[in-house]
């Protein structure tokens, strides 16, 4: 993972509108997409299916409590 991701304090959210047929389908697809991008610790924060698709916020945790925080190590790199 590129080092820039280390600077994310804890999580990065992906907020979008996904055209899909059901709430389950939308959730499945977005998780798949974000995992394809290389994120592992992925969860759906919010999902609401209405009309043509779902309003979804998916989250990938980069640093969880107790992890070694990449953004603390920044000083050492340069």
């Amino acid at each position, binding site marked *: 993972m590129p080092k820039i991701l280390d600077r994310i304090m804890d999580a990065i959210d992906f907020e979008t509108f996904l055209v899909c*047929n*059901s709430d*389950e*389908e939308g959730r499945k697809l977005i998780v798949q997409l974000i995992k394809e991008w290389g994120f592992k610790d992925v969860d759906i924060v919010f999902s609401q299916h209405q009309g043509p698709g779902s309003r979804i916020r998916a989250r990938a945790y980069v640093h969880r409590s107790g992890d070694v925080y990449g953004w603390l190590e920044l000083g050492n790199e340069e």
Partner: protein
Amino acid sequence: MNIRKTIGIAGTAKNTGKTTTTLSLLDYYYTKGVTIGLTSIGYDGETMDNVTGLPKPRLFVRKGLLIVTAEKCLQASSAKVKILENLGINTPLGKLVCAVVEREGLIVTAGPNQSHHLRTVRDLLFRYGAELIIVDGALGRIAPMIETDGFIMATGASYKLDSYQVARHAHYLAEICNYPQSAKDLLKDPAWVKLLDSRATVVWNSLGEILAEVDESLLNPEQLGSFYNHSSDVRGLYCPGLITTQCLQKLGEIPFSRGMTYIFSDPIKLIVGNDLKVTHDFLTTVQQEGSALGYKQMIPLMAITVNPFYPKYRYESGNYETAYIDKGQLLEEVTSIANVPVFDIVQDSCTNLAKIIFDTGK
């Protein structure tokens, strides 16, 4: 002459081979030209497609099969069926309909959930010419089996990994279902026979006179209080309803004399909600003391099928993989202590099982 029969297929857990058993039987009877009526108790949610909300059809059926299932199941089926009648019974998957398969394909059944509805379904299937009705059971549900003439239990490693425990459970079930005799055969005195019409739980003396009477179902040990009076005069007991484990235990404590006759309604009433070991031990103790056991209605456990397969959970992948216990050992253990025919559903051909269930006469 072929007697019409209704058979239930129950399973102790998922993946014990209930569906495989059903499929094998359907196949076998088809080749013998037996008209089968197929239904199920409720439906298995695992067969639902999350996206479409329709069931995924898994049973392959052939032309001529009569089925009772919910409307939405027909929508999802690939087999072509002709609807014969709408039963007017509602289910979450629509109304129950009776249909006949016109072109083979896949179906899924979602039948009645309550036993009195199953009775209606059964009568209807017979009316349309079914010779043998197969009721695919639902996990955790045994009560509707009251409307069958007997059932098969599918069990295996998915229930318990320890084959001895699987065997013991099967043994208890077999004993409970099959050991007591039919009350009709057991009771000689007409005065006693009349007591079987009682809607309440009764105890009587040698003359057939009722000494105490309590509720139809024995749910709470307190209900048995009045049985303590004249307990030494009691010669027979009939319970038309359910008896819970605690009540059975309490019943065992009442100082009835030896040589009693216990009549229960049917094995289902001793099984539902109960600890099979306690029920089994009660029956054994009572029998050892010289008492007789009978059921007003017999619902025999006709056979057991075993399946050594179980889904093994893997933490690394967060998924399940196929696994088996020793199938030889499983078959042997169950056969040795269960007093009913036992089959390995994958290995054995269906013929012997089918013959036990229903004599096709062909």
